[in-house]
């Protein structure tokens, strides 16, 4: 799409516009009632205290990547290869058998010597930027509730997602783009749009899904282009609508929403180019595009950077539709393929954010909804292919890593047992992870609340503690 070659005259100027909408929103905010707000839910707001990070990129490895094969080395497993593990057996979704040592090799990486497996050779080179949490815990071995817990802090009930809470708490710094975007190529993850639901928060807080398998901005955002009306005419239409307002058409009483609406349409007019611009990867220089790689994952990681750079508050980057990391069979081949798809792109994202100075106040979170068992999954007709070379789900202990604003880097927090089955040292529950992320974004997780039906709801419900070991 070509730039419009249309400039708004003075009253339409960008600064003036933002100022006037700002005022209108301010008035609206005054009118707002707790819980039933008329204020613009996307207007930028400050957090409770000074944030270490202003935006979040959540790399969601849906399906459950194996920690034992990536960031949590368990050499002990080799001793028991093919034999039952000692100790009590933990119940997972399906029956598992004897110990299954990792087919991948670990080595210490970077100056910190943080061990990373050869699944992620390029991410390994960024080891010094990572804070690996090895003692993650979830509550359930099933995908759907585990996804809900990781995204929304509750397995069962309909609660807003982390991204929605952050947009609710902080607004967005670029009104021309959605505040919360979920990138997922080729369709939707399991549990679909509920992963980024706003629940009872204002609709504008909901994640907007872009299918990154397509590669043109107009296929990502509805109604972004118009083949029937020229930009000049659109501009004239907006001016006409404004003129009717100034002539008192319809005898509308004074109300800040009137200006707010006109402003929002002028904003939309500009979004047609600005959003296209944000989403147009062709505008990146070749060396940057090479850094990320010409792949679907490369494309969506680069898109994530372009979005946060322009003020989108939260971007989720999903591996793909369904639950790609769910390697009940052929774990070695499947994990190898999946990691190869994203390794370069993830490393590129970290490097690129860093060299642009964005990593300082951007939080990057990598992880799935749970990890995988150190034992081999047994054949279950109807559930797997029975090849005895995969792992079942494991919510008792798994790894995620964080990078960026306010995170202690080149370090591993907590530990699982000798085999990687259960978090035994400094366990970090999903609620704790949420509390820590909110803390880094400038919120006390007990105070970021929304009043509904007589109760103050929060992301962490009645749980959660900030994990000091993760903070720099």
């Amino acid at each position, binding site marked *: 799409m070509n730039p419009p070659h249309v400039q708004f005259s003075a009253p339409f100027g960008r600064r003036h516009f933002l100022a006037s909408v700002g005022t209108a929103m301010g008035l609206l905010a005054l009118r707002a009632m707790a819980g039933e*707000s008329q204020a*613009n839910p*996307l207007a930028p707001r400050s957090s409770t205290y000074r944030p270490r990070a202003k935006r979040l990129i959540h790399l969601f490895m849906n399906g459950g990547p194996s920690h034992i094969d990536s960031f949590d080395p368990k050499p002990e497993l080799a001793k028991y290869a*093919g*034999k*039952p593990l000692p100790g009590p057996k933990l119940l997972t979704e399906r*029956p598992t*058998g*004897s110990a299954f040592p990792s087919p991948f090799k670990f080595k210490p990486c970077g100056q910190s010597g943080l061990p990373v497996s050869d699944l992620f050779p390029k991410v390994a080179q960024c080891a010094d930027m990572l804070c690996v949490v090895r003692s993650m815990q979830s509550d359930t071995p099933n995908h*759907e509730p585990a996804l809900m817990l990781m995204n929304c802090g509750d397995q*069962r*009930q*309909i609660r807003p997602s982390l991204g929605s809470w952050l947009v609710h708490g902080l607004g967005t710094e670029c009104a021309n783009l959605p505040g919360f975007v979920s990138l997922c190529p*080729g369709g939707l993850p*399991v549990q*679909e749009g509920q992963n980024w639901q*706003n*629940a009872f928060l*204002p*609709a*504008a807080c909901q994640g907007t899904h872009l299918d990154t398998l*397509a590669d*043109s901005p107009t*296929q990502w*955002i*509805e109604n972004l282009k*118009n*083949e*029937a*009306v*020229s930009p000049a*005419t659109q501009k*004239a*239409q*907006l001016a006409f609508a404004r003129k*009717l*307002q100034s*002539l008192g*058409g*319809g*005898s*509308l*009483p004074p109300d800040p*929403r*009137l200006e*707010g*609406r006109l*402003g*929002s349409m002028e904003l*939309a007019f500009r*979004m047609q180019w600005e959003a296209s611009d944000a989403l147009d990867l062709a505008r990146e220089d070749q060396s940057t595009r090479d850094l990320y790689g010409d792949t679907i994952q490369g494309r969506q990681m680069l898109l994530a950077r372009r979005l946060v750079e322009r003020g989108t508050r939260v971007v989720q980057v999903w591996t793909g539709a369904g639950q790609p990391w769910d390697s009940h069979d052929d774990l070695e081949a499947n994990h190898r393929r999946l990691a190869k798809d994203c390794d370069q792109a993830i490393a590129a994202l970290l490097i690129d954010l860093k060299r642009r100075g964005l990593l300082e106040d951007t939080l990057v979170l990598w992880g799935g909804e749970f990890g995988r068992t150190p*034992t*081999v999954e047994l*054949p*279950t*007709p*109807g559930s797997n292919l029975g090849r005895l070379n995969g792992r079942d789900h494991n919510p008792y202990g798994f790894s995620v890593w964080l990078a960026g604003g306010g995170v202690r880097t080149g370090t591993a927090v907590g530990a699982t047992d000798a085999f990687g089955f259960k978090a035994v040292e400094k366990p970090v529950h999903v609620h704790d992870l949420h509390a820590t992320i909110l803390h880094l974004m400038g919120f006390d997780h007990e105070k970021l609340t929304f009043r509904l*039906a*007589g*109760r103050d709801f929060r992301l962490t419900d009645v749980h959660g503690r900030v994990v000091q070991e993760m903070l720099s």
Partner: protein
Amino acid sequence: MFLTGWLFLLTAPNAEPDAQAWGLKPWMTQTTPAQPAQSAQANPIDNFIRVALQAKSLQPAPAADKPTLLRRVYFTLTGLPPTAEQVDRFVADTSQDAYGKVVETLLASREHAERWARHWLDVARYADSKGYAFLEDRHFHFAWTYRDWVVGALQADMPYDRFIHEQLAADLLHPPGSEGRDNLAALGFLTVGRRFLNNQHDIIDDRIDVVTRGLLGLTVACARCHDHKSEPIDQSDYYGLFGVLAASKEPKELPLVGKGPANEADQRFLSEQQRRDKAVADFTTARRQFRLDQLRQADSLRDHLLASVANATDRTELSRTKELNPHLVERLEAYWDTKPAENVWWSVWQAGRKAAPDKFSQALQEALAKPGVPVPLQALSASSNLESLATAQAALLAGALWGNPQLGDLKKILDSPDSPWVFTREQTGKLLGREDRDQQRDLQRQADEWRAITPPSLARALALEELPEPPAVHIFKRGNPSRLGKEVPCALPACLDGGTPIELGAKGGRLALAKSLTRPDHPLLARILVNRVWQWHFGQGLSRTPSDCGSTGDLPSHPELLDFLAREFIRQGWSLRKLHRLIVTSETFKQSSQPSDAAQAIDPENRLLSHQNLRRLDWESLRDRLVQVGSGLESSTGGPPVPLLTTPYPRIRTLYGYVDRQQIPMTVRVFDAANSDTHVAKRSETITGLQGLALLNAPLVLEQARALGASVTGGSSDRVQELFRRVFARLPVEAELSAAEKFLADFETKPPAPPSLWQAGMGQWDAKAQKLLHYQPLKHFTGQAWQPAPLLPTPDVGRLSLTAIGGIPGNKPNQAVVRRFTAPESGIVMIDGILRHPDYRGDGVEACLVSSRHGLLASWKVLQEEVGTKVGPIEVQKGDTLDWLVISGGDPGYDGFLWSPRLSYQGTGKMHDSGRDFSGPEQVPLNPWQSLAQALLLSNEFHFVP
């Protein structure tokens, strides 16, 4: 001072330690405040409002002018604007009861019932889909019978108490064979909620929430896990209602409502449906029997016995080589340590499994020597190790199971309910193998697809029926169903009756619940309802937390008025129509929305209603108004829902649109449409750029602007005047007219976009002749996909569709989905692309590339993989077509594919990318009149009602 009681609460909340929820307070002593003079026939509402205004020295605003008043009352009662003619007529009617006549007409109209049905559907979290359903069919198919029932009930002014009775207990009011069975559709109030992957506890929780917050303004759902923190509601209240709702289930065969089979076609439909349903049931029964028999074979019995006592390594090995049912293995493993396994028929096996290998024979002999060991067990005596023992024991078991009369006692053990080999009907899923379940799912899908096209005459109610044996209900400690607390009776929350729970009984519990909620002496139900109605008329309720009347809810601004209205409502026979009439004929409703300076200073939130509130159109009113002034609204009598954003755009009211709670389209969501996840107390109201994008660019809006602009004729000034009349029901003032003239003079035409070279279509692939037959373009565009019908699947085409990145072929053999390129010029082209079949199930898809000049150029087959689809160089002449077509691999399930080919002309390097160039229907540029029409649709006057 009648306000004293409430002011007391407002100013000193701690002075009364048990500050009670406003909804639960006893009736206030009825006091219509002394009239502050003015009119003798003043509506009592105005008295209440004026007394409170006087207390703040505020004046009510003057009455709105007639056109404004007419627009307001049309919108509030019908959700639609009046036409210019209707405004003219009203202005011209100077009779005393001009307004009253309009109100009566509107109250009796179907449009009124439609509008207020939509309000009620917000309360009822209405949707046409179940939410996330994994591989299950996600459509409800018949939720619309509930929607239509609500419209019908409101149009008939069904008394609100009966309205509630039907929605909670229509099945009990109208038992089979009695009159009024159509009312069973009312039970949708309970059943149209999200289905939570069929988790019963979550489903019941959702129903408790819709009853308690929706009808009573009580937040009972908090008490699922713990006693309520701020309200007098504890866990036994929650589980008391849980018991009422857990005593019912949806019948397997949903009852027919409406006329029933009307003709032969209906009969044929029904028998086909029965055939498909039976196919699923027969298949399941047959496979179940097959699997049961399989597990009763001696070899299988032996393998399972061995696996159940093997260590992890051996079990792993056994799993590799034998066909094991893991559920049975686990059951057996647990079984050996239970009481039934101490039976003498197991004694030898038990001894053998526990014995060390070197003491094996000895242990066996000892066991066999024990008194009372049945003779047939001597067959085990020759076993030298666990394997041979398992073989011998399995032979005995097989003998017993297959009817050897000497083993009758053993058979009894194997058939008893605690036997690991017994799988109840409900446990059939644990018996079936992967292939069984895949096939079962495909049959179920075929049945569901048929159900999706049920003719309206065969509509069904999403009804409930009572279980023959209602389950005993216990409190779940911390909401955890595996931690049972004390048993609780089915009962009303105790707080409703001053702390005494009224028992409802599990049998007939829903009817008892409905009747106790509608007791005319209890204020709660009526208070909550009249407050909602007030909110829908004024934009905010007397209490602004309409679904929370608890101690943390917003206190009513005019508690006496609220009680007056609630009482009046009950006294007038729970008539909603009379309540509407009372409200919209009040001076308070009719006053201007211009606030006085004093009002803005003293009461900026207008809680005292010194003037009317400026109302913004919600999504439904906005789309209805757009279509009404554009291509014209069509009346409808209801029926199955239609997707509103799929072309060609339907012209029915938004109420009748398809609501998929899992995927509410962005264009709908940005206008704050109801989120049907849970009960909606009040729509949020946002102003965002995405709304602007939709109004500027959405093809739906452009189409209305086109129709509107094309409908006006005559000279320039005539057309402008007509546009204003059509859109705003008024004429333009001079300055508006000249602004419009200037707009038209400055108009710049957008050159039409070049026609798309790509087209989505379907056809029949003749593999023998290598020809595509019966090609036809796809006619419906959803915004993402081209497809042959507005809503998929259908039995004729399945899910056939094409998007920018891929598609799905038809469900019939060789029914192809086609991406067609028409060459704009002659030359040599190179063709490229990657074809993927991403699903790990199904049998993949087949694909071909066919040239109109050269015939079949290439073909591919993909299953859970991807292939490059490079072809060329190929010669094309201008106007030649190239067809990339895809058909099912045979099994019509899991055929989604990804393929967006591109081609480039050699020499010129011109590239045509089907993904990048993918588009919806061609957009004809708007002419000056149509552009002006769209500008009117953008204006604030179009979006707000003063």
